[in-house]
């Protein structure tokens, strides 16, 4: 029933692999284990698992493996389970598990939440966030359906799930852009904030929502999800048409206004 794709590079101690396997057996949810390698990529292992009719594919590792499996399982009846190892706190909040043990217990209860995922035009996916990898403030243009956004951005993140932002709908992406504030030098601002002489006003933060957007920069900039470059600008980014069946725990922070 369970097909585990284990990214053993995320195990700092060798014994952790055995510990996880033993714990899954104790919970009665043991299954077949596969390991991504030069011979078999994560995507190929997902195809292999599906061909063997497993109805639950579990990724053990970080955001990188979670995104890769999610991209393959979106629109499929098989569910995605995750056991986080060195994963981002956003991914842990999405599945509602702060440790691998807690995540393993969630798998046993198999509570499924059907969610959309973020996708890029080149077929890559992200469960939580995608960030523009900017080394310095850069001119960016974002094209939404009815309007165009232009700014010199010091950071830009597109989120499918961000625990600090409530989604307005399951198929909306949240774009957070930090623009350069021309009113005062950054150093002076930092000093005044340090001494508490200035009330911190983050008026250089922008938030936009949309189902689909096009991102442009003057020169090509990488787009990073889970520490891995999954695409480059210019890029079309949108929510998936199909749902992903994701196993979550009671503590999952995923919520929508709709």
């Amino acid at each position, binding site marked *: 029933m369970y097909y585990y794709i284990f990214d053993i590079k995320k195990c700092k101690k060798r014994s952790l692999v055995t510990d996880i396997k033993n714990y899954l057996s104790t919970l009665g949810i043991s299954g077949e284990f596969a390991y991504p390698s030069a011979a078999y990529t994560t995507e190929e292992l997902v195809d292999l698992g599906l061909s063997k009719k497993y109805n639950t594919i579990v990724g053990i590792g970080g955001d990188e493996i979670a995104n890769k499996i999610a991209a393959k399982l979106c629109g499929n009846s098989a569910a995605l389970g995750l056991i986080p190892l060195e994963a981002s706190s956003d991914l842990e909040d999405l599945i509602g598990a702060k440790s691998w043990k807690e995540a393993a217990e969630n798998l046993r209860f198999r509570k499924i939440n059907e969610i959309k995922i973020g996708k890029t035009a080149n077929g890559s996916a992200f469960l939580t966030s995608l960030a523009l990898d900017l080394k310095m403030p850069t001119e960016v243009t974002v094209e*939404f359906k*009815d*309007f*165009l*956004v*232009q*700014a*010199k951005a010091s950071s830009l993140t597109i989120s499918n799930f961000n625990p*600090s*932002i409530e989604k*307005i709908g399951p198929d909306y992406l949240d774009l*957070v*852009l*930090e*623009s*350069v*504030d*021309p*009113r005062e030098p950054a150093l002076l601002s930092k000093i005044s904030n340090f001494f508490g002489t200035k009330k911190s006003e*983050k*008026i*250089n*933060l*922008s*938030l*936009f*929502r949309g189902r689909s957007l096009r991102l442009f920069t003057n020169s090509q900039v990488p787009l990073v999800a889970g520490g891995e470059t999954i695409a480059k600008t210019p890029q079309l980014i949108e929510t998936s048409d199909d749902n992903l069946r994701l196993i979550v725990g009671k503590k999952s922070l995923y919520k929508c206004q709709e």
Partner: protein
Amino acid sequence: MENNVDTIIGINVTIKGNLYNKGSIQVNGSVEGEVKSDENLIIGETAQIKGPVIARVIEISGEVKGLVEATDKLEIHPTGRIYGDINAKSLIIKEGATFVGKSIMPGEAKAAAEVAKPREEVKHEVKSEEDEKDSIEQIADKMGFFSKK
């Protein structure tokens, strides 16, 4: 990040096109186009908008060049500048604010029209002396004054 705000336009960010939200909008940057919200619209000190703005409640501390339409309340703060007409159910203009335009309050439009209407001239019918003489003779004739002769 501000709570309960669907869209925030930060300082030094330019929007071209029409922005419509069911939820609240906060503007600190520039917009060239229509800004419309079913809820609150907060226009910060650094904001510059060229185009109509429409919302339930509007607070203006920045600059708007265009129609401002608040279905509920409009408040212009001391740093607020409006160059355009206002249509608001309830209006607060703080000291120091700039407003160049015409203001209309829905529901009060009829009263405003009456005040603006030019007073009607009272028409008096003035009869000439000849006409008056004729009419006296007609009355006398009817009463038989002349037939008794």
